[in-house]
């Protein structure tokens, strides 16, 4: 008998298991199939910092959450409708977030006395009725996988390891996902290990057939594609989008890309990715530390190339002195900080927005640096291009603040038209630009463009423009060393004015207020865009009038910032730090910004934000 098919508008699945269970891979595969179906989606990988935390323990649980829908969604979802728990630890760690009535798929093979005791279960929750509030699908995933592979020549251990593919097959059946992509993926992954390829393929297909035949699942689900702008799409994570943005900006500016970097979670993937693209003339340099990474990038910039460095919070701290040098040298440099929980080593694999003040002010002296932040995984592409545009146009270091959530999360992305990228013109000096009192023609490296205040940039190899620059204060114009008090005052103010002038090339802060009569404004910056947007939407559905505005540029701020802030009775600013942007806006504009903060290493939950907005909007 054909099974019933139910239409759903959205689903949130969480795959959870041991670090060694391959949950990230399972999630990635399911995401790829879902993207190809044309659903809108958002993902949240959440894994421990340890490569293999002790098996079966709570700290060792690795999870991957995917939200997909037939409409436009903004977050990976607050809590799952479906939890796949590969062991008792995964169940225990995730059950508190599972709403009653949700589907719960458990791998019963792992629910042994020993494993249960390990995470503090005295009794098996599958047998005590403790899970009666859920639709439990108790399936011996491991033994069914091993049984399916009995004719394949692999070790018992390898057979057991294929259980994630069995689970993936089952879920693909349950949600009508195509299977070709995964089969092709396995072929590539196990190209040199034919038996493992067979094992994983058979396990995947066995999971699918199990769904088809078992009585446990009486229905399967269909989620229609989301209506989106016509175009060609792919799914993309933040770090990949950042790498591609840098490549695109290199192409756009015709400057070869140089990446100097030192490995650090969650930034390393950008280094890995760009290392693959030598054919574009990309030079990647794994330095001895973060200081050398940024130093080498600055050296490349001095050589007239596009110098970039990628890091996370602790690395940004180490780079501070060199970024200050770049401010003084007035050379283009892009610093991508993929923020993580701090202070110190903090939470390497978790997200936070707590480097904002470090990025803005974490240097000696008055050292203004433009700072900008992407708002979603795919937006990392645009942010990277914009950072390069500013760096090159204004001869300045620029800091991009992404974070762990954007870096590893993914979403569908409408492929960009490279012709629509902003022009990026290095405008190198090729001739002398100054005549001395005695009539000799010379090159003044600190002669400025009157509009942008950008200085003249001559790359070595240009005859007749030989010059020396350094971190000592320079005479305006000539660039010679100067200790003159009035000149220093002028140079400090000029460097600040140059950054301020970037305002002329960035769009004003856009306010989204569909009814036009909101008296509360919800502000945000960076990766909180999704949760804030979803929460605002929810409040509007409930009849509230709420305006939303989101900063891309943190320095300089858009020209209308003050005007926007002063146009509302209340301004609410959720941040994943202790109120860093709120502090800044209060100080700059004397506006009583209400800060709502959380530093749990995870993105905001929509329901929570919605209730905070609700409260703020309705209290008098």
């Amino acid at each position, binding site marked *: 008998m054909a099974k019933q098919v139910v239409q759903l508008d959205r689903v949130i699945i969480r795959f959870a298991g041991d670090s060694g269970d391959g949950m990230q891979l399972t999630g990635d595969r399911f995401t790829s199939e879902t993207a190809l179906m044309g659903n809108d989606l958002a993902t949240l990988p959440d894994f421990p910092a340890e490569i293999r935390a002790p098996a079966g323990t709570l700290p060792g649980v690795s999870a991957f959450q995917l939200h997909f829908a037939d409409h436009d969604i903004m977050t990976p979802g607050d809590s799952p409708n479906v939890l796949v728990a590969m062991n008792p630890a995964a169940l225990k760690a995730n059950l508190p977030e599972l709403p009653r009535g949700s589907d719960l798929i458990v791998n019963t093979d792992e629910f042994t006395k020993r494993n249960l005791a390990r995470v503090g279960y005295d009794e098996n929750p599958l047998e005590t009725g403790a899970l009666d509030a859920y639709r439990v699908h108790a399936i011996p995933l491991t033994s069914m996988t091993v049984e399916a592979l009995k004719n394949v020549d692999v070790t018992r251990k390898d057979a057991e390891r294929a259980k994630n593919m069995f689970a993936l097959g089952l879920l693909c059946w349950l949600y009508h996902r195509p299977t070709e992509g995964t089969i092709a993926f396995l072929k590539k992954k196990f190209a040199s290990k034919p038996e493992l390829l067979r094992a994983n393929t058979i396990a995947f297909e066995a999971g699918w057939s199990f769904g088809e035949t078992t009585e446990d699942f009486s229905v399967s689900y269909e989620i229609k594609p989301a209506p989106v702008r016509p175009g060609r799409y792919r799914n993309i994570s933040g770090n990949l989008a950042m790498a591609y943005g840098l490549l695109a900006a290199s192409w756009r500016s015709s400057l070869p890309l140089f990446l100097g970097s030192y490995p650090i979670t969650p930034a390393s993937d950008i280094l890995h990715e760009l290392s693959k693209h030598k054919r574009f003339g990309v030079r990647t340099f794994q330095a001895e530390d973060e200081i050398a990474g940024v130093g080498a990038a600055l050296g490349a910039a001095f050589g007239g190339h596009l110098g970039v460095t990628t890091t996370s919070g602790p690395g940004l701290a180490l780079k501070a002195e060199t970024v200050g040098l770049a401010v003084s040298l007035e050379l283009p440099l892009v610093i991508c900080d993929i923020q993580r929980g701090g202070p110190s080593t903090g939470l390497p694999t978790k997200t936070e927005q707590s480097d904002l003040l470090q990025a803005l002010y974490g240097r000696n002296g008055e050292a203004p640096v433009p700072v900008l932040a992407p708002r979603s995984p795919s937006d990392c592409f645009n942010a990277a291009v914009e950072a390069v545009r500013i760096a090159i146009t204004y001869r300045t270091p620029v800091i991009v603040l992404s974070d762990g959530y954007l870096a590893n999360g993914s979403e569908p992305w409408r492929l960009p038209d490279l012709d629509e990228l902003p022009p990026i013109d290095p405008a190198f000096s090729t001739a002398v630009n100054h005549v001395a009192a005695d009539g000799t023609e010379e090159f003044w490296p600190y002669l400025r463009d009157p509009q942008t205040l950008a200085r003249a940039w001559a790359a070595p190899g240009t005859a007749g423009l030989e010059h020396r620059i350094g971190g*000592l204060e320079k005479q305006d114009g000539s660039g010679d060393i100067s200790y003159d008090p009035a000149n220093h005052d002028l140079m400090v103010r000029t460097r600040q004015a140059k950054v301020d002038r970037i305002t002329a090339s960035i769009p004003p802060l856009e306010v989204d207020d569909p009814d036009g009569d909101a008296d509360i404004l919800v502000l945000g910056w960076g990766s909180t865009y999704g949760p804030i947007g979803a929460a605002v939407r929810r409040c509007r559905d409930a009849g509230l009038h709420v305006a939303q505005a989101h900063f891309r540029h943190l320095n300089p701020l858009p020209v209308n910032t003050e005007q926007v802030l002063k146009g509302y009775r209340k301004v609410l600013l959720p941040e994943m730090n202790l109120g860093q942007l709120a502090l800044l806006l209060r100080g700059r504009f004397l506006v009583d910004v209400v800060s709502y903060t959380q530093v749990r290493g995870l993105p905001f939950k929509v329901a929570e934000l919605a209730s905070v907005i609700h409260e703020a909007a309705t209290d008098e």
Partner: protein
Amino acid sequence: MNSPAPGFGLIDPLAGIPTVDEPLTAKDFKTDQEVRWCPGCGDYAVLAAVQSFLPELNIRRENIVFVSGIGCSSRFPYYMNTYGMHSIHGRAPAIATGLAISRPDLSVWVVTGDGDALSIGGNHLIHALRRNVNLKVLLFNNRIYGLTKGQYSPTSEQGKVTKSTPLGSLDVPFNPVSLALGAEASFVARTIDSDRKHLTGVLRAAAHHRGTALVEIYQNCNIFNDGAFELLKSPDTKDDAVIRLEDGEPIRFGTEGQHGVARMPDGTLRVVDAAEYGTKRLIVHDAQAPNPEVAFALSRLADPSTLRTTAIGVYRDVRRATYDDLLHEQIASAVDDQGIGDRPVLEDLIAGKDTWTVEA
């Protein structure tokens, strides 16, 4: 232009750097900036030597870059009419590495001090040496922090009394040559500011070495550490205190060449009486020896405190593929294998393998 160099089997060490049409002179390398070292500082002599030797390389002035850190010596680039960067304390090797990797058409020189290179910047120095990036590093060793007015440095002798060590310094000094050899350096030399001919010879050898060349220059700071190298400079003592390394020659020194260096039965090197020990049994200097052991042993002959029996000259000069040449080979072969990364390739890359199209 000299022909571009492959990573191995180099013929021209200056390959890739544009050459001059008209010969340059020392004067071409002088700037209009007033030189601000203390009168009598050893840095003047090094500056003059570099300015007068560079023209013989026949490379274009605009293709030469001097990058320095912070310290008295690091003011050097301001006085060189080439491209230059006076950077931050200790980081010049890192900055120069990025520059050299990006621009194989440049001759990149690092100027650094004993504090700059061996204290705050020690990490960058050893990694530059191990990578063998095409850089020439001039390490001005005055065994003191000059610019900060006279604290002891990582090359100061133990027990050094300075402002920060009124009862004498406690730490054992680095021997920069030993350090460089331990860091896999392909070229290591030592010379002295006051010996113009020797200094120029060593600079020439360094310039003709493709890869990282470390040149330690003993430099007198007449303000805070005057006479630090007097034993090696004074006509009364120098012949017996300095071992001049000549490639392919037996190692002999002393006013009458009465001392020599020989290998002992236990494998160590010792200073011996040449006549008594037998001149045939002295070791012959071989800067190209693949194994750095003998060079290292030679560097250990110097007394860490007094510098008595210090060897000067080129300790090591071996051919090894440079990081930048190898990287450019990787780029070239990526282009050969996959084709050049132009716009359509970029668009394909960005699109990836799994795309879907939404129709209007």
